């Protein structure tokens, strides 16, 4: 929190430390939302810039992560409304685990995607997710229920394939 005060005062070193501390979290969340590394980098940068610009107004009523994720979601939704930018360069090679996670998330609507990522990857409690997304706890629970329904099919399919492979 001391660092946060220093960032607000305009201390450049504190600012760098703050960005470095949140960058991996924000980037991973952006990757979960966009599914593409270059888009994720753009979205994460946009989110961090907006976060730094709005830091004066952050009153600590929610955690910094919750606050940053709410900015990220707003930015993501506003990017979705714009026409898609041309693909700048191919996505880099990924770890298979990352590929699997992104494939699972790919078909979820944005609201369910971010809810699932905050719950299963960032381990945020339901109430924090509700605050970040500006919805009720009941809505978060309903979205998680829908996520479970959708992903159950996908994960079930994977499991049956594994079983078949093992039988061969």
């Amino acid at each position, binding site marked *: 929190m001391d660092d946060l005060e220093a960032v607000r005062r305009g201390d450049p070193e504190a600012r760098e430390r703050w960005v470095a501390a949140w960058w991996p979290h924000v*980037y*991973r969340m952006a990757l979960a939302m966009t599914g593409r590394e270059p888009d994720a*980098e753009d979205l994460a940068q946009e989110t*961090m810039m907006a976060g730094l610009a709005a830091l004066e107004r952050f009153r600590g009523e929610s955690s910094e992560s919750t606050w940053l994720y709410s900015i990220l979601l707003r930015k993501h939704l506003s990017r979705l409304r714009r026409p898609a930018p041309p693909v700048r360069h191919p996505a880099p090679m990924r770890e298979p685990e990352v590929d699997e*996670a992104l494939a699972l998330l790919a078909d979820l609507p944005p609201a369910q995607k971010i809810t699932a*990522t905050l719950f299963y990857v960032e381990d945020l409690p339901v109430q924090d997710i509700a605050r970040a997304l500006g919805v009720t706890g009941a809505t978060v629970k309903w979205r998680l229920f829908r996520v479970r329904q959708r992903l159950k099919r996908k994960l079930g399919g994977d499991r049956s394939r594994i079983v078949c492979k093992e039988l061969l």
Partner: protein
Amino acid sequence: MSDLDDRIRGALGGLREAAVPSVPKLGTPRAEPKTAPPVLLAAAAMLVLLAGALTFMPARPSATEAALGGRIRALETRITRIEHEELRSLLNRELALLRRELELSQVK
């Protein structure tokens, strides 16, 4: 936590392995404008001008004054074209009366 939750957590947990690009050098964020934006300033200036105009501009002539003025101008034009001395004198008297009427209406 159900078995399904564990499986989802395990599968999505792969995201934590994603390579994170180096921390970008973010430029200094643009400070929020503390002064009113130019559009608001322009609107305020226009309101002040409008208030000033309404306060200091002479009042619009009433319908009677406008009508008298119109009649006087028409009569002045007509008199210049009349060569008959007596008729011109009569019309000049009428013109004088109209001017006097106009003066009186402005005094009220």
